[in-house]
């Protein structure tokens, strides 16, 4: 860590906070991946890490390198843009594929549209 010796404290504090917040959010999302019961619930869990979890860590990296090299370092934005564009696409495809597979096996998790209010749809899968 000797390269960061001349990093002023006013920059080190936000970088540390951003890193901790981002890593915490990502960890929470991944815990959700373990804890939530059904696949469709788990589909929501990684978005924590890919939305603000990644944003905080990228922002922390941007602040760190900008202050350290005393010039604007923004190439982390590229990863951010890439994540924003690609993450919804993969999750949508995966959700669609899962629904398709469930339907092929004959247990449609989505109750037919007519009487969806009539029966609760909380637990269909183990």
């Amino acid at each position, binding site marked *: 860590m000797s390269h960061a010796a001349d990093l002023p404290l006013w920059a080190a504090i936000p970088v540390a906070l951003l890193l901790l917040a981002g890593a915490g959010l990502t960890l929470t999302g991944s815990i959700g991946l373990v804890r939530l019961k059904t696949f469709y619930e788990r589909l929501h869990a990684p978005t924590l890490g890919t*939305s603000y979890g990644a944003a905080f860590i990228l922002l922390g990296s941007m602040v760190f390198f900008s202050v350290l090299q005393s010039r604007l370092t923004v190439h982390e934005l590229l990863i951010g843009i890439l994540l924003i564009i690609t993450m*919804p696409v993969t999750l949508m495809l995966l959700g669609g594929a899962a629904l398709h597979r469930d339907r092929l096996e004959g247990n449609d*998790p989505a109750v037919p549209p007519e009487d*969806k209010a009539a029966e609760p749809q909380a637990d269909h899968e183990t």
Partner: protein
Amino acid sequence: MRRLLPHPYMSASLFLMWMLMNESVSPGPALLGLAFALLGGWALAMLQPLPLRIRRWGTALRLAGVVAVDIARSNLGVALVILHPRADRRQGFIRIPLALRNDTALATLACILTATPGTAWVEFDRESGVLLLHVLDLIDEESWVRIVKGRYEQPLMEIFQ
């Protein structure tokens, strides 16, 4: 102008990405970036995508702000659901009839809903225009329909149609 720059948004974003990657504003990389932007626009024109027209920039910017705040809020909500599971939490699918038909607007709506933790776009029936949405914390179906239609669909219609 149309022949030189058939897809101005695509070319502009390619140029921006190139400059981000190089992180300098010296003429060399800028010139190369310009060449890539033009080539990218032409290549896209050969694929003949649907034309993209953004009618209201103000609404688009406001929608981006709304989405950023909503994603932050639902980040906290989903984190709470994961760390403190409630026994009475109900998950489930809801069907929302959409009036949107523009492909770009639909794609944008799909990205917004999937990027927001707590909602996931699962299926869209192009003929009937009904969207199948999975919601992690389903309190009230009516309010979800209202949120999607009022908060996102309305501005998207203004922007793209």
